[in-house]
């Protein structure tokens, strides 16, 4: 007999889900609301929720003071660039690990994962010095390189998991049908792995878009992406919550919209393989 789901449990589950969802979303909502307040209302005590004089002044000020579009373009170039390069490296790597594993494959995978446990600040100084000597500080290329390397383990791991789900028989069939390694990957493996590759791509763009440690430390003005744009409103000006919120809202809006439209793909990709 299938497990009975009563209306009562359904209602409770729905309530819990909504509570968690609202809790997670609340800070973002608060930021968006604050961006429409005056500086005085923003720090009012007790806080004002919805009933205040809505204003677009903060957005105007932010627009006047900084070049949003330049930061936006930097973010786009850096996140898409690092993701595309990452995928180009990770696809062959994941193929090799999934389909022709060697004795050390497991160890290599674990080692790659372990690099994610290293606190980034631990390698900041050497990396900063290298970047300085190579002239990569405050360049888009430099950031693309660093973010590619930072996220490569995750990309390889995700693709490896997806590739493992593809039956070896099918790749062998392609080999028997006369496919070279290249055609096997292009005509058989990649089309079958499209959902996995798409969600890897999306997730990685989001991670790269939101990455704040390296983007803040290795940039100044030229290649600063939106994370640096937000940060520029927090320190030098003192605490101007409303303007900071406006800048934040502008910075997260593109990725939030992309995430909204691709949520089906993301969820499908992230739960891929969980249910056969």
């Amino acid at each position: 007999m299938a497990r009975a789901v009563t209306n009562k449990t359904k209602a409770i589950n729905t309530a819990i889900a909504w509570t968690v969802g609202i809790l997670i979303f609340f800070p973002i909502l608060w930021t968006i609301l604050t961006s429409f307040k005056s500086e005085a209302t923003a720090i009012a005590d007790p806080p004002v929720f919805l009933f205040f004089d809505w204003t677009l002044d903060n957005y105007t000020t932010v627009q006047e003071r900084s070049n949003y579009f330049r930061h936006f373009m930097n973010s786009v170039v850096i996140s898409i660039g690092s993701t595309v390069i990452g995928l180009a490296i990770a696809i062959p790597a994941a193929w090799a690990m999934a389909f022709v594993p060697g004795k050390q494959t497991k160890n290599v995978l674990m080692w790659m994962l372990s690099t994610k446990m290293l606190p980034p600040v631990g390698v900041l100084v050497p990396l900063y010095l290298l970047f300085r000597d190579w002239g990569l500080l405050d360049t888009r290329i430099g950031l693309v390189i660093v973010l590619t390397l930072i996220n490569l383990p995750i990309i390889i791991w995700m693709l490896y998991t997806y590739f493992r789900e593809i039956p070896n028989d099918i790749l062998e069939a392609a080999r028997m049908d006369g496919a070279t390694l290249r055609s096997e990957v292009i005509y058989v493996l990649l089309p079958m792995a499209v959902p996995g590759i798409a969600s890897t791509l999306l997730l990685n763009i989001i991670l790269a878009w939101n990455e704040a440690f390296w983007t803040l430390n290795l940039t100044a003005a030229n290649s600063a992406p939106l994370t640096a744009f937000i940060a520029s409103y927090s320190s030098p000006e003192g605490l101007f919550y409303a303007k900071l919120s406006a800048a934040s809202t502008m910075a997260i809006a593109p990725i939030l919209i992309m995430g909204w439209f691709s949520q089906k793909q993301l969820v499908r990709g992230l739960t891929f393989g969980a249910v056969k």
Partner: protein
Amino acid sequence: MGRITLEKVRKSFGETQVIPPLDLTIEDGEFVVFVGPSGCGKSTLLRLIAGLEDVSGGEIRIDGRPATDLPPAKRGLAMVFQSYALYPHMTVRKNIAFPLKMAGMSEDEKKSRVERAADVLNLTDFLDRRPGQLSGGQRQRVAIGRAIVREPAAFLFDEPLSNLDAALRVGMRLEISELHERLKTTMIYVTHDQVEAMTMADKIVVLRKGNIEQVGSPLDLYRNPRNRFVAEFIGSPKMNIVEGAEAGRHDAHAIGIRPEHIDVGEGPWEGKVGVSEHLGSDTFFHVHETGLADVLTVRAPGEVNHRAGDKIRLSPQLDKLHRFDRDGLRIT
């Protein structure tokens, strides 16, 4: 052409030797079945021929040309997998055309070949469907279609019918045999089912633990098994083996008699009927307390009724008796 020769071919995975050096010749146009219990190395042997596994030693030749170091794509062989291994993202048409695309064939040639194959396999109505929309039997036919379009030197079948239900299996068995009649191309077929082996093969290769136990025509193996293993593996229900004094009377360590070679009625052997299986065309009796073996299986033609517990007398057809020595080899 599709003459395949294996010379001293062996295969080890790490320290474990799965196929000790073996020699085998498969003649052009032959239908050869590799049969044996699971883990006997029959699939591995097929994959060595296909090139999906590398040999650890020895030489494989296809039509006289050395093929040992050729990748699968260059061997000119086609394979049908147990899981069908169709490309799920392609239509039936594209699946069948894939080997032709890889061979760089022109669009017109591809189209006509795919249509011809679809016609042969009754797939014309399904050409624009995807594998997910087909039944098991149809999928298997697509897999066969993908194999025949390329006109390979030989077809390799790796337990192609194991995933089908019993009725479909019998039908597909016939279709594959008819295909062989029509194409006259070499076929190598792997199965653990001795009925498939007996019904389809020109030549059966019986394998055990990577060793070839015997090679021969189905009836040759049935009539003249080289040893006890082959004797018991070929034939259904399997051969009765009797050891001890009764075997001694025939100057053997053990004697074997097939269920269909024991007559019910008069005779020197006596036992108590256990379970009877009525097939309509035949009746199988499992006879206990014979003093010869734990149980003797007897096949009586037609419908014969004996209740459980009945005593019956049995008489082995002495000219059909097989005698085996202490090592299990047949005494001729």
